[in-house]
Every structure is written in C-alpha cells, then in structure tokens.
C-alpha cells in the first residue's frame, strides 16, 4: 500500500495517521468554510454585477468609470485589502472582512463579462424581437440574458477560481476556511496541516473550474447541435 510506504519513509513530514483521525473534525469544516467564503462572495458579487452590467450596457457612458473603480479594487494586493478592512470599525477580524474583499475582487470580471455577453447578441436578433412587440424587459430577460448566459458563466468560472485562491489569505484574518488550516500549520510547525490545506484548496479550485466549464457548455445547446448541422 502506497500510504504505508509513504508513512514509513517520511513519518514526521506527512502524518497520514493524524489526517485519518482528524479529517472530519479539522479538515472537513475548513473545506466547508472555504466553500462558504467563496460561494457567498461570488454570489454577492453576482447580485451586484448583473444589474450593474445591464445598466452599463444600456448607458454606455458608465462603462469607463465602472471599469476604473472595479479595476482599481482588483489591483489592491489581497493581504493589504484584508488588513485595511479589518481596521474598519464594525468589520474587524473574521469572515465579513474576507467576504467584502473577495466580492470586490470578483466585480471586475463579472461586470465585464455581463456587458460583453449582452454586447455579443446580434443587433438583428434584438431588432426582430422589438419588431415583433417584445417589451424592453422581455427583450432583456428572454433574449439578451439567455444569449449572454454562457459568457456570464465563463465570468463566474474565472471569478470563482480566483476567489477560491485568494480566500486562502482569509486565514490570516481568521476568516475560517483552508487558509486557517495553512496558517495554523505554519504556527504549529506541522507540515501535514499546511499541505492538506494547500492541496484541498487546489482540488477545490480545479473542481470548480471543471464543473463550471461543463455548465458553460451545457448552457448553449443551440451551439452544440449546430456543429452537427450540414
């Protein structure tokens, strides 16, 4: 058995015994905490980005200032942003600061993809919709957003993968999640904890990437089938 071999080779570097005994109590809650941080952040960011993206696609003049602000947020180093947020009265240490930070990192990608997705709808499709008597909100909900959805999901994919990565830094401000595991491991000089946290974060990021990629494909049955057309 490879586990036994590894264990006997490097007993104090990676402690399989510890992992087996503490997985449910220490590792699993951290995984759940990490997923919570990531998905709540992307969810909140999406709730902000969808209406804002639609607004920008209607009022083009807003695009430059919106890109400027969200682009600025995106460039702040994550550790610095978390540190600043922790000092804000009413936020302090914990998941709230991390979530605010993660939301602000997601905005740029999400808003840009919402706008790009809506822009990618052919003008004649919209003209035909209007000419047949769809109202503006029907055009948005039945034509523009469904057609933009694959591009929006692509944005969600990038945002999610990025956020799962950055959320690790949240461990530094006691936000919970896998970062907590890693920082504890460093503090306690216990490599098993560090490696488990890092590995699980990687697995989460890759799984989210693949799952959302599949979803993205699934969102456009019309394009999948068209390839088979003669």
């Amino acid at each position: 058995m490879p586990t036994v071999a590894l264990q006997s080779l490097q007993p104090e570097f990676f402690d399989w015994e510890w992992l087996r005994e503490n997985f449910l109590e220490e590792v699993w809650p951290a995984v759940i905490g990490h997923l919570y941080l990531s998905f709540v952040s992307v969810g909140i960011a999406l709730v902000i980005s969808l209406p804002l993206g639609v607004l920008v696609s209607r009022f083009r003049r807003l695009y430059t200032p919106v890109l400027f602000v969200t682009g600025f947020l995106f460039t702040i180093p994550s550790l610095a942003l978390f540190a600043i947020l922790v000092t804000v009265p009413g936020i302090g240490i914990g998941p709230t600061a991390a979530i605010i930070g993660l939301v602000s990192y997601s905005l740029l990608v999400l808003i840009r993809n919402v706008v790009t997705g809506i822009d990618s709808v052919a003008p004649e499709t919209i003209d035909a919709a209007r000419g047949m008597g769809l109202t503006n909100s029907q055009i948005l909900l039945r034509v523009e957003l469904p057609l933009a959805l694959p591009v929006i999901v692509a944005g969600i994919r990038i945002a999610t993968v990025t956020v799962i990565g950055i959320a690790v830094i949240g461990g530094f401000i006691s936000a919970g999640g896998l970062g907590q595991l890693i920082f504890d491991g460093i503090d306690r000089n216990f490599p098993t904890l560090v490696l488990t946290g890092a590995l699980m974060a990687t697995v989460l990021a890759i799984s989210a990437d693949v799952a959302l990629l599949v979803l993205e494909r699934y969102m456009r049955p019309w394009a999948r089938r068209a390839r088979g057309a003669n």
Partner: protein
Amino acid sequence: MIEFRGVSKTYPGSERPVVNELSFEVPEGEVCVLVGPSGCGKTTSMRMVNRLIEPSEGQILINGEPNTSMSGTQLRRKIGYAIQQIGLFPHRTISENIGTVPGLVGWQKDRIKSRTEELLDLVGLDPDNYRDRYPAELSGGQQQRIGVARAMAADPPIMLMDEPFGAVDPITRERLQDEFLHIQDNIKKTIVFVTHDIDEAIRMGDKIAILKEGGILAQYNTPENILSAPNSDFVSSFVGSDRVLKRLSLTRVGDLDLEPPNGNAEGLPRLSNQMSLKDALSEMIGAGAERSVVVSGGSVLGSLTLDTIRQLSGKATK
C-alpha cells in the same frame, strides 16, 4: 389599409430629412413595394408603420386610426415583421421562434402548436423534421422561410417585410418570391415590402412606391403604369432602359386574346400559356419565327404573332 399622411422624418442634429412629406395609401390586401436607391428612406418609412421609428411630422393611419392610438408594443404584435438579416432567436427552437408572437398575445399552447405546424407546412418545411431544430441547423433559405413564417404566426392583417429574401442566392430568392406570391394569393395580407431591386419590386408589388434620395416619393402606381409611363427622368432611369421588356414580363401568354390556331404549325415554337410575354418574345426571336403556338398541357390554345407583342409593347412606350 395603411395611409401615410405627410410623413417626414428628420433626425436630430441633421438638417436634411431622410423621409420627406410622404403621402400615399396602401389598399387592403395589396402588396406595396417601397423601392429606391440606398439612402432613399425606404426602410425608415417602413419602420415608421410599426413605430420602431417615430415620424417627426405627419401621421400614419391604419384602417383610419392613427398608429399612435395604442402603445408601440401592442401595435407591433398586430403587425408581422420580417427582415433581411432574419433575426431568428438562436437559443430557441424553430417552433419556439414561430410561436413568439402568439405566445406574447396569450394563445393557448395547443393553438400555438397547431399554428406552428400549419405554418411549417405552408413554407414547405416538414414539421416533424424541423420543429425542434435550432436556427443554426438550417440553411439560409430555410431560415428565411422561418423568418416569414414567424412574421405570419399570429395571422396579422398587416405585414412589414424588409428585403425578406435578400440573404439568399438569386435562384433560391426567386423560388421564395414565387412561393410567397402563391401564399399571398390566399391570405391577402396588406404588405409593405422594402427592396432596392426594381425587378423584385415589379414581381412582388401590386403597387410600387419609388423613392429618391432625401426620402421624396418620385412615383406611386402599379408596376404596369410605372413601366409604361414613368413620370420623370429619375424613374425611367431607375426602372432601366429595358422597361418595355420588364413590362412584357408582367403579362402571361395565356392572359392574351390569342388568334385562333391557323395554318401549318409545323416548325413553329410551342409556348406554354404560363410563359411571360418577355420569355415568349425571346423564344420567337431565338427561333426566327414570326408566329408561335400557345399550348396548355397537350392542347393548342391559339397562336401568338410578333405583331401582337409589338403592338402591346408599343402601348408601353407611349
């Protein structure tokens, strides 16, 4: 009936109108073709009927009521709309595309379904084969058929068609035109049809409105009258120097009072009664014959002489 009353359109920031004091009537059940060079405002004029564009001056009456008597979206649901770029919804199946307007105006599912099948049959696409396909799986010609079917879906009395057969090759276009004329014979919609192609205008129109640059109506009449009596140099150059031949193309051999078949028909060209006079003339000149025999199926209907055609075209040039 659609009536343009002194309709003008000037875009903000521009001095020159794109449509200028347009006044004419499209009688019920007729096809009115708006034709002219690019920049003549023909598409703009059409789009003012269903208020995709609002006129700056004047009004458009539909059956005596100004088209502003209801909201734009209400109005547009009652007017079929087909455009050159088709604009099918790529994410909706063919039957969902066709069912768009019926769905908007609240038809029951069963009714939409049977109407969709009926329309697919009407435009010559097998419902079982095409109903659940996506637009991208269809050829250009098939997509244009769906575009027209979708415009007719809720059985609107009025239809607007902006070069609806413009995105296909000439052979397919001619076939679609024929099919559509055949359908129109039965459904008798009031249609505003936009094209830049005078031949298409002559083929499709009960009336033709020729527009010139700046959106000015140059002439409004039947194809026959426009070809026989163009009212200006602009119109006669727009319809082309072959207008006599174009006029002959409007008449079928079988519609004439033919001379009784006489003498020896040996070696004379035999023409179908469905052939246009233009094609008949071409056949006779090609065969070097003064006289031809007109047949329907196997039986001889009568004979046609070059003199008869000459007399008819003589009228055209006066």
